[in-house]
């Protein structure tokens, strides 16, 4: 390759190489995820030990933790930013922008993404967004405090609560950077996958990971502009006196706001038109990773490949028709609500197709229990648990009872956050050799898995009971209600489990960085996997293949074919 001599800047900072850009996204997403995790620990600190003073925290947050006791305003900012950071800056950036950029060209046999410059630009667009989001904690009034959903009027009236002022403005600015970056990335995904596949790689021969990223690219392009439109209108309401989302008759203290005629529901519609597809933007890549990982480690072709592809398409399509199920208690017409119930429950069909196909892939296979396959099995477990509670919430009659309780918190931490996160972990353990040319420690990986898996269930499963018992989703101190006081031991248990969960992630972070320097050197194809990405050298340079790009002669799931000597046939072999 003629560009061996690159400056530090063009190689590590403003790189055009999709693999370097993918790793840059990794670093950013993991940093943000770590911060989001600390916020979660602080949230659990308050819920496990309501209003107990922690004097050392005053140094970090002199206002929010004045004399070491968390203020309600700070608590509200904490869960708002925890949601925002985790949903957008960890769970979207890591599996989609990180793995999408890293894997798509390797899996389809391309030298790079279709628009490398745009790719570089999209990364450097999201960085300021992330910085602005973090800075917002330290401005006057603190970070945004209207939930990750930013519902007006809290988000629209600057004087509503302290976080509604500068913090909310910075939230909106940060999100606009994020949307711009993410749509650029989605454009690149779609064009790359449609155009740059190597010879022989028909669409129906693509790995399911790439299929998922393809649909995710389309979802991002079609759904994020709705958030951009909403964010712009919200900015006008906040700063320029319009009334898109603000009705008449809002008092802040003794002051009557000048707004009239607007409808907060309009924001909810615009937000959830993005917000629901966003859930699948997080979930679909995890589903793809799981399919690829399970096939490799079960030494089985993925069961029902064609139905898997159709299921990804069906989930993607349906995700645009279900946003109303987030709004059952908003006073929507019961008739409209029933329509949303039908479309929501319809998603159970392609989701069940995927879950059963994984189970049939696993069934009676001789599974190789590696860190990657354990996390892949973890995805299946979390996905089934979270999927079943989704049926409760998708039915409006039940949802009206459970809405805005901890049942919902438990549900989405299983299906979206948990399955998404486990998928990403599995993918890191699986593709790390291709990323850094070294292996992660399997021993630490398995310890990481078991701590994470057990602690994850311990944190989020009891939340369903809290929710059914009536504990509200955003409550600062449950003990103010007598009927919630008996639940305090459960909250304490969850808090301790959450600390364990957080500590378990430190093992992963150590493993990730230590293995870069000290891990066992990886061979070209350490897992004996059949996908095209394993035909590249252990540490592929810019351009990925040193010689010609190999042709794809088959799909990437030819494992354990009867009558063959080897138990897999690589995609690049005739």
């Amino acid at each position, binding site marked *: *390759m*003629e*560009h061996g001599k690159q400056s530090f800047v063009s190689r590590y900072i403003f790189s*055009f190489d999709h693999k370097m850009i993918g790793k840059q996204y990794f670093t950013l997403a993991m940093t943000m995820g770590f911060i989001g995790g600390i916020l979660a620990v602080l949230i659990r600190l308050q819920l496990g030990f309501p209003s107990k003073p922690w004097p050392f925290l005053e140094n970090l947050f002199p206002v929010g933790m004045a004399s070491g006791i968390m203020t309600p305003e700070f608590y509200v900012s904490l869960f708002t930013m925890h949601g925002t950071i985790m949903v957008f800056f960890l769970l979207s950036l890591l599996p989609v922008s990180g793995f999408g950029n890293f894997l798509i060209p390797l899996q389809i046999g*391309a*030298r*790079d*993404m*279709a*628009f*490398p*410059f745009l790719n*570089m630009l999209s990364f450097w667009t999201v960085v300021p967004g992330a910085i602005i989001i973090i800075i917002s904690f330290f401005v006057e009034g603190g970070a945004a405090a209207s939930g990750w959903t930013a519902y007006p009027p809290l988000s629209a009236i600057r004087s509503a609560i302290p976080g509604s002022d500068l913090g909310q403005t910075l939230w909106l600015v940060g999100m606009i950077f994020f949307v711009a970056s993410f*749509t650029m990335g*989605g*454009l*690149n995904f*779609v*064009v790359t996958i*449609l*155009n*740059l596949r190597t010879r022989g790689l028909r669409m129906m021969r693509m790995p399911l990971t790439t299929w998922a990223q393809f649909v995710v690219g389309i979802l991002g*392009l*079609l*759904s*994020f*502009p*709705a958030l*951009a*439109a*909403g964010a*712009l*209108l919200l900015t*006008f309401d906040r700063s*320029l*006196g*319009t*009334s*898109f989302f603000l009705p008449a008759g809002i008092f802040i203290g003794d002051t009557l706001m000048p707004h*009239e*005629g*607007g*409808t907060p*529901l*309009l924001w909810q*519609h*615009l937000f959830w*038109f993005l917000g629901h597809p966003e859930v699948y933007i997080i979930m679909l890549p995890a589903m793809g990773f799981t399919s690829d990982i399970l096939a490799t480690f079960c030494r089985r072709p993925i069961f029902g490949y064609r139905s898997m592809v159709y299921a990804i398409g069906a989930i993607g399509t349906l995700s645009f028709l279900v946003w109303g199920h987030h709004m059952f208690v908003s006073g929507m017409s019961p008739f409209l609500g029933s329509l949303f119930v039908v479309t929501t429950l319809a998603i159970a069909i392609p989701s069940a197709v995927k879950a059963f196909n994984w189970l049939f892939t696993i069934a009676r296979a001789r599974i190789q229990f590696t860190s990657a396959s354990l996390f892949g099995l973890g995805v299946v477990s979390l996905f089934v648990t979270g999927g079943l509670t989704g049926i409760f919430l998708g039915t409006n009659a039940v949802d009206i009872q459970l809405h805005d309780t901890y049942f919902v918190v438990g549900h989405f931490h299983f299906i979206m956050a948990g399955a998404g996160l486990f998928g990403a972990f599995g993918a890191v353990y699986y593709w790390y050799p291709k990323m850094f040319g070294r292996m992660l420690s399997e021993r630490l990986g398995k310890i990481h898995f078991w701590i994470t898996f057990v602690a994850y269930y311990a944190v989020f499963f009891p939340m369903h009971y809290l929710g059914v018992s009536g504990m509200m989703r955003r409550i600062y101190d449950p003990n103010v209600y007598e009927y919630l006081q008996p639940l305090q031991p459960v909250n304490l248990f969850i808090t301790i489990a959450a600390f364990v969960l957080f500590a378990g992630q430190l093992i992963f972070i150590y493993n990730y960085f230590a293995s870069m320097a000290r891990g066992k050197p990886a061979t070209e194809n350490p897992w004996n996997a059949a996908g095209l990405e394993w035909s590249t050298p252990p540490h592929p340079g*810019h*351009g990925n293949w*040193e*010689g*010609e*790009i190999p042709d794809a002669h088959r799909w990437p799931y030819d494992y354990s074919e009867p009558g063959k000597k080897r138990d897999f046939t690589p995609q690049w072999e005739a």
Partner: protein
Amino acid sequence: MSKVNSLTSGIAAPLDAARSSSDRRHINRLGLLVGLGGITMLFAAFTSAYIVRSGGGDWTALELPPVLWMSTALIVVSSLTLEMARRAFRDRNLASFRSWSAATAALGTGFLVSQYAAWLSLNEAGVYLQSHPKSSFFFVLTGVHAAHLLAGVVALLALFGLAAAGRLVPGRSDAPTLTAIYWHFVGGLWIYLLAVLSLLG
């Protein structure tokens, strides 16, 4: 590694030598179309917000300033001049291409000035962004559209500059067609917005 070209240039898709320039053209056009899909969704979201909000009790009709018809005429003519530019490019007449693309950029700038005049005339009539919901939507929609059109003007000026520097090669460069697709799209978007603003609510 002669098989790999333009890896270092980075702007365009890195292709192996086996791929033809028509592949690259196809990729760039598809990228543009996909991007236009995103812009379409942005305005679809605005439209749905407009329709929902127009059901509110405080919705007030708005007399659209007549100068908008001049804007519309300018943008329609600019699409025609850009097509003349493309024809000149195809006929390898670069001097004529430069004139027509400069004329298009001038007409585009005229459109922006005319839109600004429409804002001023509303202000003179006492209608501002925050006056009532329809005026809010009017300023937001025309403003966001103007930002997209401004990007088109910048693209036209870049096209003019590339042609003047001799960097556009007829038969090879696809930039004029890409710019034209975007320009017609943004022009069409204005016609659509005008229809929404005058027919709905």
